[in-house]
């Protein structure tokens, strides 16, 4: 199989189109009676278009691209995890700490030496924090570094 990617995508989109269109039929009639154009008209149209084009993808898929496997795949997953952790820790740890961690980790995983990665993270975090909180007066969370 050389065209699995598009076929899987097509099947996924077909399921989405059917679900999307089906949900639209279940909405209550708007107050004041049904009109020629209801809230479901446009979504129904979209579901049909997506359904037809996903069938096309299933029948005439493009050749596959290479998907990252093994180490590269793991690196990508890791960076997604870093990003999610960054979002999660931004408020509890505060901007400076979480940003230092996240930027350093990403730089390091992209191939920078640990020390320069850490310095990049720290400097960029402090600069952006100072710039935003003092120069632009937009508050970023201070978190653990809150002094007041």
């Amino acid at each position, binding site marked *: 199989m050389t065209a699995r990617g598009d076929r899987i995508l097509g099947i996924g989109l077909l399921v989405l189109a059917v679900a999307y269109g089906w949900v639209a039929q279940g909405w209550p009639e*708007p107050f004041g009676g049904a009109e020629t154009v209801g809230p479901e008209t446009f979504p129904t149209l*979209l579901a049909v278009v997506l359904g037809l084009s996903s069938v096309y993808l299933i029948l005439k898929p493009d050749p596959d691209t290479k998907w990252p496997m093994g180490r*590269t795949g793991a690196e990508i997953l890791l960076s997604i995890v870093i990003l999610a952790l960054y979002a999660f820790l931004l408020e509890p740890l505060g901007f400076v700490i979480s940003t230092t961690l996240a*930027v350093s980790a990403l730089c390091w995983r*992209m191939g920078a030496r640990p020390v320069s990665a850490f310095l990049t*993270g720290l400097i960029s975090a402090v600069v952006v924090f100072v710039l*935003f909180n003092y120069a632009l007066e937009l508050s970023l969370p201070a978190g653990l570094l809150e002094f007041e």
Partner: protein
Amino acid sequence: MDTLQFLMDGFAVALTPTNLLFALFGAFIGTLIGALPGLGPANGVAILIPLAFTLGLPPETAMILLTSVYAGAMYGGRISSILLNIPGDEPAMMTCLDGYPMAQKGKAAEALAMSAIASFAGSLIGTIGLILLAPVLARFALTFGPAEYFALFMLAFATLGGITGKNPMKTVVAATIGIMISTVGIDIATGTQRYTFGVLKLYEGIDFILAIVGLFAISELLFFIEERAGAGRKMIKVGKLMLRPKEILAAVPTMFRGGILGFIAGVLPGAGASLGSFISYTMEKQYLGKKAHFGDGDPRGVAAPEAGNNGAASGALVPMLTLGVPGSGTTAVLLAMLISLNITPGPLMFTQNADIVWGVIAALLIGNVLLLLLNIPLVGFFVKLLSVPPMYLLPIVTMVAFVGIYSISHSAFDLYFMIAFGVAGYVLRKLEIPMVPIILGMLLGPEMEKNLGHALVISDGEWSILWASPLALGLWIVAGLGLILPYIIGPILRRRMNNAMKESPTSD
């Protein structure tokens, strides 16, 4: 001359100290964005949108900032084309052909200066074209009814993939997904909750700024990680500038022709800046024939595509400003900014928000002068920044995207959403589903539905109203051609572009 009067008013807006400062800042940042690898113009403008918001800039200042960034990015794209033989963005591809050979011969500084001047000339021609054409088109667009608008939106989507686009069906898929995302939330017309699943956060719909930043910035990071391109590449040294006025004068007719061709390509739906620079280069090559040595480091081979792509960049603003239908990724992002500022794009903008439209146009002219002044002395500085490896740069860019999104709403929930869009964007880009139609779908979806509704109410539910008028029918036909032509002409044009790349002995 109404236009002249409006333009003067525009200059009055653009020349206020704050706006001038933001134009300068935008031009500078834009050049950086264009020059740096992995930061295309659409991407760069997208990251700046949340910042423009959180700064609470007035609409005209915000638009001036982003337009200058847009103009600057077009300038910046050529720097890495010339020095690295890697186009910073797609329209800069043709600049590699003669720019890199010039740099190899030790004439990098000349190539950079020549391309800056050509960019200026192209932009100037394009902006003059915009000033002349936009008001006319806006007046014409006032005659559009809902059915014509609906057809126009279809045309915008159909031609978005461009004539050189690979698989038009994937454009359709992408656009539909985008429009579907836009239907999430409470329906404006009836108040029905659609696809909210009772989640309060979804009642207002999905914020397209999150989606844009996620789809562009986050997915770009993931691509760089996959390609392990973190270390960057070696580049050619820039020597002393030794450009003689004679050489510049020799290239003036080339710039003139390139700018006009580029502008036309920019205005036309589905052509865009890439085609603009391609056409300018190939036409110039044929026109000059044996008198030039294109592909071998001819300065005119740098001037033609640069004038072309900058002319096209201004041209692409014509449909965006007058019809509310952008023709390229970056103008789509600019449209997102307008919609977020509660300005309804389209012909009415020329009467209701004249200060913004003309302020932006005036800023484009001023921005170009600033860019030329910035680019010649500061080129060494930009070159230094280019040598910052992406492994430091991209994490910082990602962080700035986080900060921007966070400071709009102060909610971590939005950040998760952005990451999700980034991952989805990565997967879809791997499957060659284009990003721009998704974004355009999210932006235009509500307008499409509104116009469809109005048209059907007028006709009392008769669907044929959508193609009843000759104008609407014409738009449908062009839209249809936009989907079919890529199957016929696309492979031929793509082959020619590839051949042009191969003919030049230095490109690999």
